[in-house]
């Protein structure tokens, strides 16, 4: 019967091409507006590390208090060197890392190639397993390289392509700012969005992938300054060592806590550490610490841009308006066929069959609306850069799942819109229709 109803639907839609086109365009525009904004929303609000977002935690310690008239009760987003190193030394989590962004000149071995600036991170080896960084060749450097401040590096596949033509470069050396580094691993394309592990310096989104990672200990030895934010509540003592021992916050610290028990224990440890600092006279306030997992951290930082949420809501509202219009158009179309419904009912069609026939017709309108919506969504995604920040706009893209969702939303919403018109059609009184003929 479905094939029969599909054939009837096609015939019916062809009979009133203008009305059909109007319905299809209405659905198409409504769905396209929703899907375009959804493409952005999906890109910015997705879970960047779904397997572990509940196990990775960002500790925060309030090392500023209410100095300098600071009114917030929240600890600073980043951590100073003293506290970060204390956490690393305590080693209270299964895995832990500290990181900060660096920008360094890479000097190719080929003298004809010019040096170029590359962005990367100084971190510990735990960074790679904690954040599930995928390797193409080799792997993370051993933990001993962290303690020995070794000149090792992990590079991106893109940088590997540029320097070594994509060959397996593990074990080879590269020159960064005049220092030779041994390559421990090559990372596949990896750029989680939002960049949850470095929200402090990216506002959550950065379209360029990190190009290299070097040991944190080595970077500190070489006095490599952060390429990100450095916030101080007071002036820092002079020199590199002075800065390291200041209360300036510039480091992101992450710990991996696989169980609720481990989380509770770590929270206790943070409290105890802050209390200890208070007793030592460094903090003049009660312990004020936070321990947020990835999702909580992204929520707290409002990483999803508010304009993305608002535009999605507005677009959904537009879709509802389009659907209300579609209800009216379908009602007019279906009720015009009341005589036909009367005849079909007289010839044995139950109300259920009338529902099936007319919902099949609505679904057909939905499919056509979905196809139009696909084209309009593609155009919308192309033009999204006019509304959103380019780093965010670049994240929005049309893939198979979005295409399927577009058609699905079009069909479902049209079928839902068709329920009332179909209900009216199914309740046409055949006797009245046949008498009035």
């Amino acid at each position, binding site marked *: 019967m479905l094939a029969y109803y599909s054939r009837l639907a096609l015939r019916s839609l062809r009979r009133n091409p203008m009305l059909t086109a109007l319905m299809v365009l209405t659905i198409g525009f409504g769905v396209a507006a929703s899907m375009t904004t959804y493409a952005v929303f999906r890109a910015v609000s997705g879970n960047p590390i779904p397997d572990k977002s509940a196990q990775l935690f960002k500790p925060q310690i309030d090392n500023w208090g209410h100095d300098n008239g600071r009114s917030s009760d929240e600890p600073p987003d980043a951590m100073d060197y003293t506290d970060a190193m204390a956490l690393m030394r305590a080693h209270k989590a299964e895995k832990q890392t500290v990181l900060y962004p660096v920008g360094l000149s890479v000097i190719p071995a080929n003298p004809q190639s010019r040096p170029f600036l590359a962005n990367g991170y100084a971190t510990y080896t735990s960074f790679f397993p904690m954040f599930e960084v995928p390797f193409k060749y080799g792997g993370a450097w051993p933990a001993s390289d962290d303690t020995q401040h070794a000149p090792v590096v992990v590079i991106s596949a893109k940088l590997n392509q540029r320097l070594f033509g994509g060959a397996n470069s593990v074990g080879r050396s590269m020159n960064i700012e005049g220092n030779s580094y041994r390559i421990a691993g090559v990372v596949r394309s990896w750029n989680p969005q939002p960049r949850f592990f470095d929200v402090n310096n990216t506002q959550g989104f950065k379209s360029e992938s990190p190009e290299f990672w070097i040991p944190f200990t080595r970077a500190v030895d070489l006095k490599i300054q952060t390429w990100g934010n450095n916030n101080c509540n007071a002036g820092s003592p002079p020199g590199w060592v002075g800065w390291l021992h200041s209360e300036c916050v510039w480091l992101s610290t992450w710990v991996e806590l696989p169980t609720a028990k481990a989380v509770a224990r770590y929270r206790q440890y943070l409290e105890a550490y802050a209390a200890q600092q208070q007793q030592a006279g460094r903090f003049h306030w009660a312990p004020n610490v936070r321990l947020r997992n990835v999702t909580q951290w992204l929520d707290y930082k409002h990483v999803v841009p508010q304009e993305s949420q608002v535009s999605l809501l507005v677009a959904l509202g537009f879709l509802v308006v389009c659907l209300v219009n579609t209800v009216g158009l379908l009602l007019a179309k279906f009720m015009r066929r009341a005589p*036909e419904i009367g005849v079909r009912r*007289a*010839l044995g069609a139950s109300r259920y069959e009338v529902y099936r026939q007319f919902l099949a017709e609505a679904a057909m309108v939905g499919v056509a609306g979905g196809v139009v919506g696909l084209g309009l969504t593609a155009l919308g995604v192309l033009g999204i850069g006019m509304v959103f920040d380019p780093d965010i706009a670049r994240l929005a893209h049309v893939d198979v799942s979005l295409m399927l969702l577009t058609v699905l939303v079009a069909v479902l919403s049209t079928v839902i819109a068709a329920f009332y018109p179909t209900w009216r059609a199914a309740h046409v009184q055949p*006797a009245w229709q046949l008498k009035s003929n």
Partner: protein
Amino acid sequence: MLKMTHLSKVYRTEVVETYALRDFSIDVKEGEFVAVTGPSGSGKTTFLTIAGLLETFTGGEYLLDGADVSGLNDNARSKIRNEKIGFIFQAFNLIPDLNVFDNVEVPLRYRGMKSAERKRRIMDALERVGLASRIKHYPAELSGGQQQRVAIARALAGSPRLLLADEPTGNLDTQMARGVLELLEDIHREGATIVMVTHDPELAARAQRNVHIIDGQEVDIAEEPRFHADHATGSHA
């Protein structure tokens, strides 16, 4: 075949109750050709729509093929309409978007019949009404008489036990009306039960029995019913 006893149908509004049928009784035996006559507004069509299970009644009893139909739900009523009843309307009521073949197919579709069986029945029915060569034509391309023949083919295709006809020649000229009537008589001779509503005395005279309705009630009429059997033996009524 069709037995109504003390049947009533009341249309109620906030201010008035209108009896379309009042204490109406009729008993149509299997194989009968009965004409239900009466002036406009007398309740003929209401009787027909209730008989065809297109409308419910307010009081009384209605047995169709021996079964009480008063408590049936929509599905059961639709199934009976589809399997036991054929309708022929004054306005033909063909679906304009469907060609002749597809129009005749409609009731068979709701019966869930296999394609080959549907096709055989459709072609048989269309041959019987003389329109087998017009299967691709649309209703608008046919004369009134031809359209009514298609409607009759549609009614016959499902082999109904009961044919209900509402002024079947009302929209036709004399010649076409004669052809349609002869077709109905042929169908009756083959054993179908036909109940025809008409206000045309000449048409009613071709039936075996007349039932006259005025103001929703059956009334006796002085005239003797003229039997369809006369026609079969050659003495036209």
